[in-house]
């Protein structure tokens, strides 16, 4: 019965949506790029990747909040699953091929991750996917051999230092440039590696922080209560 009610509700919402869509009172991108805020970001980008210049420089406060969200969720997972200590033992034992395969793949994935957040301001991708790739590489290590435990305390220290350096950069922005999180270094010539002032540095910080946080989350998810 409940399913029927839910289907009716969703169907009604869809009907309303189509009526409004087709009589023109609810079109979505009514404003083309010219008169939208995004146009300013497109017109004067700080680095060649406009999205990165928005994420890390124009709206850098959002990204600081974003990094805090991941930080709180890794704290929360540690708080919820803190009691578990022993690693989950899979039904199958460690396969030889997987272990060798991971030994080969691990450095490659880490390098791709590092490449992604170092070139965040030139090519698509940035701190978040780069960090997630590093977390993924650590995940391979966990899967490949069941007795592997990453040095969580080292990752915690890395996470703490990266986060506080990011905030300190913001405060330095106040001292030197009179605005919080101001891009104090010079922008440099668009398009080459060392350009965009603080942007590559911040993306490296975010990448390492996201990588270590996700490793912490994976470590807690791999444990179980015996």
């Amino acid at each position, binding site marked *: 019965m409940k399913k029927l009610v839910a289907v009716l509700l969703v169907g009604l919402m869809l009907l309303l949506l189509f009526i*409004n869509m087709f009589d023109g*009172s*609810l*079109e*979505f*991108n*009514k*404003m083309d790029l010219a*008169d*939208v*805020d995004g146009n*300013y*970001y497109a017109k004067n980008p700080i680095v060649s990747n406009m999205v990165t210049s928005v994420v890390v*420089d*124009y*709206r*850098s*406060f*959002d990204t*600081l*909040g*974003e990094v*805090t*969200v991941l*930080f*709180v*969720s890794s*704290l*929360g997972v540690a*708080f*919820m699953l*803190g009691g578990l200590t022993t690693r989950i033992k899979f039904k199958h034992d460690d396969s030889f091929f997987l272990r060798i395969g991971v030994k080969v793949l691990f450095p490659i994935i880490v390098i791709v991750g590092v490449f992604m957040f170092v070139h965040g301001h030139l090519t698509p991708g940035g701190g978040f996917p780069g960090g997630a790739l590093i977390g993924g590489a650590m995940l391979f290590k966990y899967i490949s051999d069941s007795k592997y435990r990453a040095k969580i305390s080292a990752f*915690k*220290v890395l*996470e*703490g*230092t990266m*986060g*506080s350096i990011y*905030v*300190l950069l*913001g*405060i330095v*922005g*106040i001292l030197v*440039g*009179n*605005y*919080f*999180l*101001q*891009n104090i270094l010079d922008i440099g010539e668009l398009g080459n590696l060392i350009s965009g002032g603080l942007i590559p540095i911040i993306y490296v910080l975010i990448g390492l922080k996201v990588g270590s946080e996700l490793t912490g989350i994976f470590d807690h998810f791999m444990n179980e209560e015996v």
Partner: protein
Amino acid sequence: MIRPVLLVVLPLLIAFLSVMFKKQTKPLLLIAVLINAVVVFVIDKGEYIIGNHMQPYGIVLNVDNYSLYALIVLNVLFALLVLLNLAKITKIASILMIALGGLNGLLMTGDLFNLFVFLEISAIAAFMIVATNKKLIHVFNYMIIGIVGSVMYLFGVILLYSQYGTLNMNKMAELMTTTGTPATYIPIIMIFGGLAVETKLLPFNGWVKGVLGNSDSLVGPMIGSIYSGVMLIVFGRLFTDVFVLNDQVRILLSVIAIVTLIAGEVSAFSTMKLREILLYSSVAQSGLAVLLFLNGYGSIAVLVVFANVLAKFILFMLAGVMTNSHKKSEHTEYEHILNNTVDNHDDISTLAGIFVKNPLNGVAFSVASLSLASLPLFFGFFVKINVLYSMFLRGDYVLPAIILATSLVEGAYIIRMLVVLWNPGKEGEKATKEAVTSLNYEIDQLVCMVLLLISLSLVALGISPDLAIDRADEAGADLEYNISTEYVELEGGKE
């Protein structure tokens, strides 16, 4: 040099550092909380740009009277709550720091998407704080409704961006002229739905009963008074300063607020459990505050929120302490174990006459609840008088009728609760020995004294409310759509 942005950033910085020094997280929490409580008094008002980008393109923090007073109340109460519950905070010290940063960010931000990010930070921190009381089903319900609420809020913000092309609140306020067509009122309803979760309005307050129903002396005041106060102020900022509501939209949203007000009062009247009375009364107060914000009584709503936050802080703190009291008899340790597994003593009848044993808490509790019931000589009385006065001035008679009826119901269940807690047994005689409950609870003197002080401040504000009313007037002046300007100040009405 002291910038308001430090209020948000310092707790985050100390939280990031606290991960590295595992053992000293509690002292770090203390430092962060005290720094914030001091810094909040020295920051000055104004619009602060982040990252040296001009107004609509960069993120801006506007700290005017409206948000400054809210910041002061938030930081002082947060510091007080952490100090009073220091022994109870073990594993969630870092999460509390992040919650402090998130809440400060919520009050200051001038950008709609930035508000979403801080909403998300404070919500996740609230999930973890609530998860300390081990009843995980309620935490899970709270999470699901909280996440759906923030998704609705983001959907509303994106619809506004597709209509008006900006995320900046000031520019949005200028661009938004009417909410007539569906393209303009659907985002408003979505954002109202998104904020309705944390402000406990009817369609989305299913989680309140579970979370506040079994809250202890840290979770209760945190979610019941601090979080709900901040969310109401954010709601007021958005719906009076930024959005322009048409009449139909205003009536629709006011109906939801009125229904919440009535449902809250009636269900508070119908229950005999201590914390349920408090949580339903806080649902009703949120409905009242939202009703006032929607209809343009901005500064009066600020008064209502301030009085509600103060009163609920005391009530939820004491309720949290009282409900896990246990018999002072010989086998206390078994009783204690039993106490943990069985639902602790929430029913008023089991706690009957508990104030006879500790009168100081009784005084604090009664002052706070009587101020809530808006009896004369307390701060709540002046808030209610001003609510009715400014409504009559505008010739509006429907709303005052509803508000008077609900405050009658509110007075009834509060007086009934106090009579049972103070003087059980038959009418008129002094409470006999066996009628008084055998339960008792330990509460250290500091908490007792501080709560007494806050309740005395409620009485002081009741006697000479001009301090609070001037502040509320200045705060209301910052809101664009604010009609309530005259106030009843002295006992004898306007001089």
